[in-house]
C-alpha cells in the first residue's frame, strides 16, 4: 500500500495521508450533518430568515443538536485512537486499548456515583465526576507500579490496571444494584456511550485536552518509536525511558479520561483504528499518530451517525455500533493470520 503513495519520504507520505484523511473527515462530518430526516431545509438556512419558523427549526436541529454531536464524536474518536496508539507502543502490545489501565472503570464509577448517589441534574456533574474517577484510577495504577520496582514495566502496568479496573467495576456494580430502575437506564446509556447529550460546553472542555495532548505526543513520536524496542536498546539510544514512558502514558490517560467523561465508555475505537492503520502503514509513529488520530475521528463520526439513523426515531447507543464493527474486524485478523 505504501508503494502507491506519490511521495517517498515518511514526512511526505504523512503530509499526504493527513491531508487526505482531513478532507475525508470534513466530508464525513458534513454528510452526517446533512443526513437525517428531511427536516433540515438547507435553502431556508442559507436565507437565515429568523422569522420563518421552518428556518428556525432547521437552524436549531443543525446547530443545537447535530453539530455538537458530530464535533464531539470527532474529538472523542481522535482522542481514543491517539491514546490507543500510545498505549500499544509503550506497553509493546498491539492489543492494548486506552482502557487497559482502568481509566474506563474509574470514569464509569465516577459517573455512576454522580448519577445514583449525588443525583444532580446538571449534565456536567457527571462529566466532572467521571474525570475525577479516571484520575483516581490512573493514580492508583501508578501507585501500584511503584510497589513493584524490579520487574517488567509492562506486566506491572497491565496487572495494576486489571486490579484497579476490577475493583472499580465491582464498586460500580455494587452501586448499580442499590439504585432504582430509572437511574439504571440512565447509567446503562452512559456506559454504552451516548452523544445525544453533546453540547458546546463538553466540546470546549475536551477539545483542548485532546488537541494539546495529541500535539505533545506527536512531538515525541520518534521517542515512541524507540520505546518499542527493548529497554536496553532504548537507553543505549539516549532515551530517558522512565521519564518518556511516564509522560506519554500520563498524557494518553488524560486524553482518555477527558473523552470518557464527555462521551461515556465507547469501546473498540482505541483498538480498531490504531491497529488497522498499523496493518496498512507500518509501525512508524510519525505517520501512525496523525493517521490514527484522523481515522479514529472518522470511525466514530460514522458510528454515531449510524447510531442516530439506523433505528430512527429510537436512538441506539454508539457503543453498540462500534462493538458490532469491532467483532468482524477481529474475525478478519484471526482469519488473516
Amino acid at each position, binding site marked *: 500500500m505504501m508503494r502507491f503513495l506519490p511521495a517517498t519520504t515518511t514526512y511526505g507520505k504523512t503530509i499526504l495521508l493527513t491531508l487526505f484523511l482531513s478532507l475525508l473527515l470534513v466530508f464525513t462530518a458534513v454528510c452526517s450533518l446533512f443526513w*437525517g*430526516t428531511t*427536516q433540515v431545509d438547507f435553502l431556508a438556512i442559507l436565507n437565515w430568515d429568523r422569522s420563518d*419558523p421552518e428556518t*428556525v*427549526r432547521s437552524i*436549531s*436541529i443543525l446547530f*443545537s*443538536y447535530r453539530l455538537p454531536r458530530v464535533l464531539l464524536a470527532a474529538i472523542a474518536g481522535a482522542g481514543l485512537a491517539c491514546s490507543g496508539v500510545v498505549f500499544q507502543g509503550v506497553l509493546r502490545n498491539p492489543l492494548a486499548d486506552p482502557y487497559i489501565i482502568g481509566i474506563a472503570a474509574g470514569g464509569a464509577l465516577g459517573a455512576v456515583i454522580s448519577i445514583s448517589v449525588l443525583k444532580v*441534574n446538571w*449534565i456536567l456533574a457527571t462529566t466532572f465526576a467521571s474525570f475525577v474517577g479516571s484520575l483516581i484510577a490512573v493514580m492508583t495504577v501508578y501507585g501500584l507500579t511503584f510497589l513493584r520496582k524490579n520487574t517488567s514495566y509492562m506486566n506491572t502496568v497491565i496487572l495494576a490496571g486489571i486490579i484497579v479496573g476490577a475493583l472499580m467495576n465491582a464498586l460500580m456494580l455494587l452501586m448499580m*444494584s*442499590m439504585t*432504582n*430502575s*430509572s437511574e439504571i*437506564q*440512565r447509567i446503562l*446509556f452512559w456506559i454504552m456511550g*451516548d452523544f*445525544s*447529550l453533546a453540547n458546546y460546553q463538553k466540546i470546549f472542555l475536551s477539545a483542548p485536552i485532546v488537541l494539546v495532548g495529541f500535539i505533545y505526543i506527536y512531538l515525541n513520536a520518534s521517542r515512541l518509536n524507540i520505546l518499542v524496542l527493548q529497554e536496553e536498546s532504548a537507553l543505549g539510544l539516549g532515551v530517558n525511558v522512565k521519564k518518556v514512558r511516564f509522560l506519554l502514558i500520563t498524557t494518553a490517560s488524560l486524553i482518555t479520561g477527558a473523552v470518557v467523561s464527555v462521551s461515556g465508555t465507547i469501546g473498540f475505537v482505541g483498538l480498531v483504528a490504531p491497529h488497522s492503520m498499523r496493518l496498512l502503514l507500518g509501525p512508524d509513529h510519525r505517520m501512525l499518530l496523525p493517521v490514527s488520530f484522523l481515522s479514529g475521528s472518522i470511525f466514530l463520526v460514522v458510528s454515531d451517525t449510524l447510531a*442516530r439513523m439506523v433505528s*430512527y*426515531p*429510537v*436512538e441506539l447507543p454508539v457503543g453498540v455500533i462500534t462493538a458490532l464493527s469491532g467483532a468482524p474486524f477481529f474475525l478478519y485478523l484471526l482469519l488473516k493470520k
Partner: protein
Amino acid sequence: MKTKLCLIALAITLALSVSASLAGECEPSCVIDSIGEKVCVSRIPQRVVSLAPSLTELMFDLNAGSRLVGRTSRCNFPKKAKAVSDMGPYMAPDFEKLLTAKPDLVLATKNGMRLELIDRIKGLGIPVYVDNSSSIDEIQKLISKVGFLIGQNQNARALITDIQTRRDSLGQALANLGRPSVLFVVGINPLIVAGSGSFLSSLISEAGGKNVVNDLGIPFPKLSIEEVIKQDPDVIFMLDKECHGIECVDYWKNYAFLQAFRSSRIYELDSDLVSRPGARTIEALEILTIHLHSIKVTPALSATNNTVFKEN
C-alpha cells in the same frame, strides 16, 4: 342417657362444623391473575404482603390495610402504609423477611418482581397474585379480583362503580373535543419517553389525547430530539422525579419554537400518582384531562379535592 349424650355431642359437632364453614375454611376461592395463572386461597387472607406501591394503595382503598404485614420501601401512600413493616426495595425484597412475616397472600406486579422469585414463593405454598394492568379497564378488573380474593367484594364493587362514574363523566366532557398530540417524557438526560403499549400511553388515550410516539414496539424508547421537533406535540408531560418546576420548562429552552413551549403547555406530573396502576389512576386521568383540554372543573370532576395542580 347415652343416646342423649350422643345426640348432644352430634349437635355440638354439627354446630362447630357449620361455624367453621361459615369462617370460610371450605373450598378455595380462585381467580386468574394478569399473567394467566390461577390464584387460590382456601380462607380469607389475614396476612397480606404487597410487593408494589400500587397494590399497597389498593389494600388501603379496599379498607383492608390493617391486614398488610409487609410492603416495599417505595410504598409511601397513604401515610398509614409507612407503619407496615418494610420488606425491602421495590424490585428486590428481602426473601427471608417475607417468609418470616408468614403471609397467606402475596401481591406483586409483573414489572416489579422477577418471575423466578415469584415462582419460589409459590413453591412454598403461598399464593401470589401478579398484576400487569396497563389500562383503566384492567385496573377495574384488578380491583374486582383482589377484592374477591380478600373477601372485600362490597368495597371493591363500590370502588369500581365510583371509578366508572368518574370515567363516564370524563367521557362526556371529552365527547366533542379534539385530540391534542402529547409527548410523555419519563426521563431526561437522555430523553426517554412513554411509547405506545405502556401504561402511561393508555392514560393519554383515555384522557382524550394522542401519543406522538407510536408503533415502536418499545414501551420506553430513547427518543431522538429530531422526532420531537418533527412531531411538535401540543402538550408535553414531565414527571416530577426527573425535574421540578421551572427546570421542566428550561429543559426545552434550546427548542423554544416548539408549540408546547410557546403556549406554556409543559406540565409537571406527580410520578407516584400517575405511574401506579390503582384506584388513584382515575385521579391521574382527571388531571391529565384538565391539562390536555383546559376545560373548567365540573362538579363531577371536583370530587378529586385532594389533587395538586402543578402548572408552570
